């Protein structure tokens, strides 16, 4: 119990350049306070988000991954976020099979004007992960933490 109390989750945030990164900037300019647990990485579009990035983050020690993009219909690149929605759904299904709690990987939307929403999402996500406790990736995979069989596309092996 006490370990859980001291637990400071580490969450990697993947933010799209146009909406959610700017929402985070806006939260900053508006000085909206939030927990420091989400560390963000900027991508041009959530459509750039290779599911491998999420796995990589979890493997490297993240307790959760928060992906945020433009609202559906408002993607700067027309429809990149729709592709992310599909990819995330598949990824989450796979992760569920490995016994990963659904709440650890989350896809949310925030427009450039939604600084408060960004802050609220970060706060909520942090609390959720805090409740869940640390992620033990290696134990989850029952091995050395490598995820090769699922990750490495067969094609590459063929090509190699």
């Amino acid at each position, binding site marked *: 119990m006490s370990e859980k109390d001291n637990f400071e989750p580490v969450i990697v945030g993947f933010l799209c350049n146009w909406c959610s990164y700017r929402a985070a900037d806006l939260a900053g300019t508006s000085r909206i306070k939030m927990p420091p647990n989400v560390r963000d990485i900027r991508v041009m579009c959530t459509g750039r988000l290779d599911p491998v990035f999420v796995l990589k983050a979890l493997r490297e020690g993240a307790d959760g991954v928060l992906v945020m993009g433009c609202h559906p219909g408002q993607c700067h690149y027309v429809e*990149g976020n729709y592709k992310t929605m599909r990819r995330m759904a598949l990824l989450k299904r796979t992760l569920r099979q490995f016994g990963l709690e659904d709440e650890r990987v989350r896809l949310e939307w925030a427009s450039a004007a939604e600084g408060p929403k960004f802050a609220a999402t970060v706060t909520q996500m942090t609390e959720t992960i805090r409740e869940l406790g640390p992620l033990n990736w290696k134990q989850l995979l029952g091995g050395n933490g490598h995820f090769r069989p699922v990750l490495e596309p067969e094609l590459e092996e063929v090509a190699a």
Partner: protein
Amino acid sequence: MMGEKIGVYVCHCGSNIAGKVDVEEVARWAADLTNVEVSRHYEFMCSSLGQELVENDIQEKGLTRVVVAACSPHMHERTFRGACARAGLNPYLFEMANVREHDSWIHDEPVQATNKAKALVSAAVHRVTYHEPLEPMQAKINPATLVVGGGVAGIQAALEIAEAGYPVYLVEREPSIGGHMAQLDKTFPTLDCSACILTPKMFDAGNHPNITLLSYSEVEGVDGYVGNFTVTIRKKARFVNEELCTGCGICTEKCPKRVIDGVFEAGLGYRKAIYRPFPQAVPKYPVIDAESCIYFERGKCKACQMFCPTEAIDFEQEDGIVTVEVGNVILATGYDLFDTRKIPQYGYGRLANVFTSLEFERMVNAAGPTAGSIVLRDGVTTPGSVAIVHCVGSRDKNYHEYCSKICCMYSLKFAHLVHERLPGTEVYNFYIDMRTPGKGYEEFYHRLLEEGTHFIRGRVAEITDAVRRPGEEGKIIVQAEDTLMGAQRRIPVDMVILSPAIQARHDASHVAHLFGISCSHDNWLIEKHPKLDPVATMTDGIFIAGCVQGPKDIPDSVAQGAAAAARVLGLITQGEVELEPVRAIIDEERCSGCRICNNMCPYHAIDFIEDPGVSRVNPALCKGCGTCVAACPSGVVTGAHFSNEQIMAEIEGILVSLDGKEPIPEVEALTA
């Protein structure tokens, strides 16, 4: 990658960052990261001294990569890239860590904020190691400009550019340019006649040799990028041949069908099925409204055609599609008025003598349906008392949270016009706060105080004809709390004018999407920077002016129109622009030709080349979103500046161990 020499610079930003983040500690800590050659902290990195620090280190210490931990890259990435370039380092070998907006400004606890800063710096250091030198792409600027929206902001912008000698396409949805300003009678606070100051500008815009006016037209498609847009415009069928029409107006006179004019007359007056919105319309040609035309409904009538002296009526006319090539776009599509029927307790539509502001504008206009007399809905009776209700749908989370900015002033103008035209009439203005910031605005308010307007500080609760006490019979009762008295009041009046919010055009989000820019949650288009770059947008080459960006009065709209024109003229004069080289590249040697990426691309920038059987990216069309990169099953599409290895390295860097525990072993990239 090994053997790179990275310089790390942590900015204090005065106390903005240093007040929360221990910048010295971050700099000290970063010095131990792999490949870091030098790590410093400085009070203002963006100052010329701060930039020189970077430049000197590049030259003296032979830095091959630079990381600045400061504000958002949207703020100063360009600044520091410039510094790198001046010192001879490719500007793309630079990375920024956002420790202000994403750290010091949003966290209270210094130790935690410092730790997060370290993680962000580590991420940037890891990432920058894998950066590659890139060359920005050059694009020529087509000197023609598209202006969308022919209200006062659009007219101003079009005239400025045309006067400077460059071609302009001015697209207007309605049959005439002029916008909302053409509907008004007087303008606050000077009370000059709106038509008198606007119509000369409309005439100039309609007749300028450099302006191609496309009225009764709408933009349907936009392709391309700054300097090189291709725009498709639908020119709706007017059923009048503009070549032949002289604008004599006989057709309108002879047309037997009269309909309520919901646009120009705001529903308060009528027009014919073939009409010109108002006598000074530009262009002068009328249009046939096919929905109300008797011929289109029943197949006979053609009165207009019979009487037209130049045989200009053409019932067979069809919509035309025009394609234009432009270098820049100015969006000035204006606003809609809030529909007051959404607040049923204000009685609009049920109580005859409740009017909207635009209805009243038309009523007081000498060219309007009542020839300028202020009368009740019966068209005859003059009101003995008028209530003017501010903030209808504004400053209300149920409708629009924002203040519409212009309503206090035009409500005061209405009060003045009632005093002027109907001396002795009692006027009550119900307001929450009186907002009169502007040159001569507060003085105008004082004038109204002198004129004897009753000001009641309280938002109107309801407007009803349900009589509660004697004296209320036959009146409309406005019920509100007089908050300065702290008591409920019921004021019986003959006429009520609602001052509705101004809101984004109903199709604003569609327009934003069409032009690839973003809008706020209430659908105003978003400017690049609210203070320092108010008319540019996040998309190069697309500018905004007037109420499309948010509520504005006429002087502000005109100023923005001119400002947008100045920005466009700057680009045209420059002749060329640099484009971010963030593009996808396919390694054709390894491409299996599966074509998955072809369908992924929202811009159709990837073509399948039959001969070698591989896909290829057209760099002119690619916008660098990276969707194809993430989709490629063979991992052979590279997103320049957002490559897999760069992002993988960034992930490793951001998850650096900070609590002194064992670092995570095996940090090889998964795809490596």
